[in-house]
């Protein structure tokens, strides 16, 4: 069967690719488009490492088919840095040492950005609940939560 010819938008840029029905958006990003910033953790929607936005909504790219991105806007970690500089969240993750091995980090950053777009002034509890779908086996979460709250503070004051 012929592959699907998909036209979509990724991080604001028009993108075309070919994919099979069974390929997930995660597989398309990493294996077809060489956009390896999005990580595969579990592949079953439990860990959040593959978080991206689809038409602005936070999703696990392992639970979306590549063909479903047709006509939609995909946002990945590669679109996060602005110009030559890091996004505030990225900078705060470095300042707070909110990462160790780094596999979960792109997912946490994409999820945190999605939270702060919806709620610029979240409580610690709201941050913890929003990020409950992102697993980290290194940090124990505390530094991640502190980095997100600090980034939110700085973004509100900007």
């Amino acid at each position, binding site marked *: 069967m012929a592959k699907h010819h998909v036209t979509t938008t990724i991080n604001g840029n028009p993108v075309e690719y070919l994919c099979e029905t069974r390929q997930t958006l995660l597989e398309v990003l990493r294996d077809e488009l060489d956009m390896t910033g999005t990580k595969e953790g579990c592949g079953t*929607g439990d860990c959040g490492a593959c978080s991206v936005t689809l038409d602005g909504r936070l999703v696990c790219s392992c639970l979306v088919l590549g063909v479903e991105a047709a006509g939609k806007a995909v946002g990945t970690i590669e679109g996060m840095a602005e110009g030559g500089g890091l996004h505030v969240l990225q900078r705060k993750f470095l300042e707070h040492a909110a990462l160790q091995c780094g596999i979960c980090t792109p997912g946490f950053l994409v999820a945190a950005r999605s939270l702060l777009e919806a709620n610029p002034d979240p409580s610690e509890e709201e941050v913890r609940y929003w990020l409950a779908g992102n697993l980290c086996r290194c940090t124990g979460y505390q530094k991640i939560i502190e980095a997100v709250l600090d980034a939110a503070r700085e973004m509100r004051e900007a």
Partner: protein
Amino acid sequence: MSDIRFETPATAEAAVALLAGATGTAKLLAGGTDLLIQMRGGMVEPALLVSVKNIAEMNMIATHAGEFRIGASMSCMALIENADFVAAWPGVIDAVKLIGSVQVKGRASVGGNVCNASPAADSVPALIAAGARAVIAGPDGRRELAVEQLGIGPGRNALARGEIVTSFILPRRPARSGDAYLRFTPRTEMDIAVVGVGVNITLDERGVCCAARVGLGAVAERALLVPEAAAALVGTAVDDAALARLAGAASAACRPIDDKRGTKAFRIKVAGVLARRAAEIAKQRALEAS
């Protein structure tokens, strides 16, 4: 490995025709949060996937004369963000908020949660308590079915070949109505219910309960409507004595299994405790909703 045919019909009738006319295994794709995992694990090998995301009525919420119609394929997050629905049915929202992470709820649908037919599905006891009806499109036209009749066993629903749930209808809310859903899990989030209880009540002008519905999840092969538990509340002020009878009736309706998440005896006891607590929240919400 041959690839899977992928279709995106624009109407429920076209989706039904595709599903009913398929020769191999055909699967409806809504949020995909169950199906993609089943496909990845090799439990399902579809020859045809029918995405329903382009079917307008299945992806929108509408109100008419106080009645809500929820598209079966709309994402849980879209429902949670609908302020009118949240105000009208806080108990259904209690349940929908528990379905998974923000990421999962960004795709997962209430229709999928119901049709996947897990006895522990969180939205189902709340929808049963709400008196929700499923609108079903099929090869023979449309029909409606109460949500408590849709699940028939673990992973098995009452849909015939080619039938799909297009939406859920939640009835007009009388004044002084409130609902609530509580579940027990070993941790606060990202877990599967050991017991789930939905309670929906309406009070009269004097604060006496004049209508009630109680739904129980994870305590039988399917989610249950428990009329005996509801009857314990009707005609009372939802006081301690009524709540004790409610708890007893909820526990008595359980026919659970022992599994890694909880024992039979634990589930029976907790069903009563949660029914009582959910009724107290529902009562409070009914008093505030006057």
